């Protein structure tokens, strides 16, 4: 039995690196420090629908083949294609992505990553406005005002608040944990009273407590760190916040612009914006200006709701404006554990973060044209390689249909919706569990991913599989050159 310390969790963009694993007989038997998402990933990676042998579809059926045969088949498909797409990447290592980029260049294809369906608009906005940001420790040490906008860290990034923001303990800022405990107790008490009332009143319907007050809650004026949540519905994160601003659906832009106006000392001539009274907003604006160090985290609730680009533009501009008055930073809450790393590798090799088209022999970037979803919508691609991603499940139906129409190669540890539709399947090792590598946290801090147990027999890491395909592609191309001559 062995205990491995300081393991990085390959699940979400928090990339917690303090996980302790106990390993017995080549299996992970205990996970310490991780959240529920982390635990289930480490404990059940063996039991998920693993593929153990390379597969090729022959006459409509999957047939187990040797790695060499699958590699040859994949290379054939890719070299034959005129406009292949290589998609996924955000759940694999930077090292694998590096090989993927070379492969894309070699075959003159388009390489794109999942940013295109989550924070792609955020990146476009950053290219327009810039971004005032920092690493997460800076927030832990200094932030006295934490705002989550359109993101629900409690559920999607479970340890974000405890490790990096409101409940973490920094050099210049203390944890707001205690206040939270009282709040939880109070809310538990409230729930008890409510259910008691329900019983007393024999109501079948849920008891509805009186409509919440629309003004700022008293917690907003407490000492120390404050946590504000802005969202369209009351999430778990909202429940533990000091102040929850419920914005009417699709009105984020209006709300952000109103805050910008207030921060820039402009008058607002209406009584309410996005369902929130202006007096209330004035308090919030004052709080933002008055803090020593504020941070705004935004999620797909902002970047993927109506007005995408405009929303993020407004948020970035709000924070930029705030810097004239105080210190303020902003950060997108990136989902997949290495989506930040993938953007990073794309950028250093090609100058562009996603949607990179090599069909002319050099990197071209024009999201909307060179992004995979758009290419599929136009029906232009004629083959695809998918790495560590399940686009058949996540893309719109029409786009997914287009994807599976052409030859499809999939590299994935398990039998996903996309794998089921593939023509060539490579089983791969789980990076961060069965293979090592590097990933970048949502704040761009690079962290090592560890190999803690062996992958199933004969199963290789993404990086290795891609290298083999690349070698095979180069061989095929050379052969063709010789034949042509």
């Amino acid at each position: 039995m062995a205990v491995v310390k300081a393991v990085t969790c390959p699940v979400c963009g928090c990339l917690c690196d303090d996980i302790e694993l106990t390993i017995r007989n080549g299996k992970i038997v205990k996970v310490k420090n991780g959240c529920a998402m982390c635990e289930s990933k480490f404990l059940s990676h063996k039991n998920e629908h693993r593929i153990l042998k390379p597969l090729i579809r022959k006459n409509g059926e999957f047939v187990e083949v040797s790695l060499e045969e699958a590699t040859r088949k994949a290379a054939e498909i890719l070299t034959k294609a005129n406009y292949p797409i290589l998609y996924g990447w955000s759940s694999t290592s930077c090292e694998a992505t590096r090989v993927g980029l070379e492969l894309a260049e070699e075959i003159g294809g388009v390489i794109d990553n999942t940013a295109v369906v989550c924070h792609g608009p955020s990146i476009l906005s950053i290219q327009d406005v810039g971004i005032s940001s920092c690493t997460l420790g800076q927030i832990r040490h200094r932030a006295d005002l934490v705002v989550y906008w359109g993101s629900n860290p409690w559920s999607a990034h479970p340890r974000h608040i405890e490790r990096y923001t409101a409940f973490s303990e920094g050099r210049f800022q203390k944890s707001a944990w205690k206040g939270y405990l009282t709040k939880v107790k109070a809310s538990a008490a409230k729930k008890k009273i409510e259910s008691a009332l329900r019983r007393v009143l024999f109501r079948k319907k849920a008891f509805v407590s009186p409509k919440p007050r629309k003004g700022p809650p008293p917690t907003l004026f407490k000492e120390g760190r404050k946590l504000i949540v802005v969202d369209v519905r009351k999430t778990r994160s909202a429940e533990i916040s000091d102040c929850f601003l419920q914005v009417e659906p699709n009105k984020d832009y209006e709300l952000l612009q109103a805050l910008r106006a207030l921060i820039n000392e402009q008058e607002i001539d209406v009584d309410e914006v996005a369902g929130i009274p202006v007096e209330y907003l004035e308090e919030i604006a004052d709080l933002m200006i008055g803090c020593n160090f504020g941070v705004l985290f935004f999620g797909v609730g902002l970047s993927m709701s109506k007005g995408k680009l405009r929303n993020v533009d407004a948020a970035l501009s709000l924070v930029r404006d705030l810097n004239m008055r105080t210190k303020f930073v902003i950060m997108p809450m990136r989902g997949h554990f290495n989506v930040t790393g993938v953007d990073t590798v794309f950028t250093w090799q090609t100058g562009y973060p996603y949607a990179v088209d090599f069909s002319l022999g050099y990197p071209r970037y024009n999201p909307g044209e060179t992004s995979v979803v758009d290419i599929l919508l136009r029906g232009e691609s004629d083959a695809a390689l998918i790495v560590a991603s399940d686009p058949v499940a996540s893309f719109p139906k029409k786009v997914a249909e287009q994807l599976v129409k052409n030859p499809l190669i999939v590299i994935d540890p398990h039998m996903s919706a996309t794998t089921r539709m593939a023509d060539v399947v490579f089983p791969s090792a789980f990076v961060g569990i069965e293979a090592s590598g590097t990933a970048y946290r949502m704040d761009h801090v690079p962290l090592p991913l560890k190999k803690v147990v062996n992958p199933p027999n004969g199963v290789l890491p993404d990086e290795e599989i891609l290298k083999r395909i690349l070698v095979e592609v180069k061989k095929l191309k050379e052969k063709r050159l010789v034949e042509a001559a």
Partner: protein
Amino acid sequence: MDIAIKDGKIVERVDELRARKIYASGMIVMPGGVDIHCHIAGSEVNTGRLLRPEDHFRDFERKTPKTRSGVGYSVPSTFTTGYRYARMGYTTIMNPSMPPLEAKHTHEELNDTPMVDKGTYPLLGDWWFVLEYLKKGEIEECARYVAWMITSTKGYAIKIVNPGGLEAWGSGGNVGSIDDQVPYFGITPREIVRGLCKVNKLLNLPHTIHVHTNNLGKPGNYLTALDTMKCVEDLASEDKPAIHITHCQFSAFKGSDWRTLKSGAEEIARYVNNHSHVTLDMGQVIFTDTTTMTADGPFQYTLHELSGNKWVNHDVETETSSGIVPFRYRRKSYVHAIQWSIGLELALLIKDPWKIFMTTDHPNAGPFIFYPRIMAWLMSRKAREAVLNRINRRARNRSLLPSIDRELGFYEIAIVTRAGQAKALGLKNKGHLGVGADADVAIYNVNPETIDPSRKYKTVRKAFRQAAYTVKGGETVAKNGEILKHVKGTTMWLDVQVSEPIKITEEMKRRFREYWTVEYENYPVTEKYLEVSHPITVKANV
């Protein structure tokens, strides 16, 4: 004269019948170029790339059977960076600003920067451990931690940027002079610079402390630059340099505001001419569109306010900050034209070419691809006049350049572009062609015997733009602008050996966890991150 090469080194002689030969008579043969300060890799550089798609659209390089594709202009992608340096005959480049927490990123990019040997300087001037140990006066303990940091991040030198100012910027502040207190830490920039200068000496590092001064980019800051040089005067020993002031142009502003801005080059040159403990590099402005990026967060914010251009800020916990702002230097702008003049004035007024090196602080004052232009300006009065005639009139009237006749010769150019830089860096096998040197050679197709660079500066400029041959480690890697071979190049780093290394106790790990948001185990850059690792062992006196 012949130069013999064997196994990647310059040797006494080789078997002439069997050796491959390059006929270079009538050409200039120099050691490969050395760049002491260019931002080419790591988190801020990459964010600069990300921020500027418009910068790449017009300037790209196609894939060839020998090379990878990429994009260029002010922040080129990694492969393109390597190729472009190689085409100019450069073979060694130093990336000057690496946040230790993000060191893995810098090294991953250096791995993908081909054709050149490289090194990188960790930012240590605002690291909490340094501030705390210096405050307590524990220089030796501080030195042990710095040794640990340089070795763990695979760094090459101690980089200091706006000492104290970056820590203050973490909370939105700055420091205004070398005697200001850093909030909370109760230490001054003077104490930081002096402390790290002593540490540098205790550790026997090959380069000096590499300093970006306080107040950079502010009118009147030449006084701060002078104060910074003076503050380590007594720490110098036997004529050896003790401090390198980088991109000095940005720290040589006289005047009380932008309207009254004047050059402080004369004062700085006078000081440097009379002292032997300082080296500088130029940070020469090029009139073009570029991307500024430094670890100096507050400076970048000021630049954003002045220009109204898009702005990126990225503070790094416990260590440093950084900022990025696209910027265009205009000939007709008074301030920019004065800045252009200052860089050249420094290089021409400082008499000893071993004390001032040619850089643009790439890409801050301009992209490195413009080096040949600067060489022409340094070698030809006529070349300078051609620009002077076209710059802002008020700036021209105030420029010292018309009063300077000096024109550098080819030997002096070789010093300011390679020999001097290699010497300042303590790279014994670079910057010269003596026996034992690395076989990094640049051959330029221009005849030094017959050409008059003062008049024919355009011919010289053209020759420097594209080496006839670039030889790296004994192999011809580029010829007349064509890359013949994609080679990796090494990453040089210091393995600093102290007699009593710091102990990684549970207490240390706890402190680590308190200061950073990563575990101690995951912090260092292991050697496996370096594709071609070149450790240089340094025996410290502590």
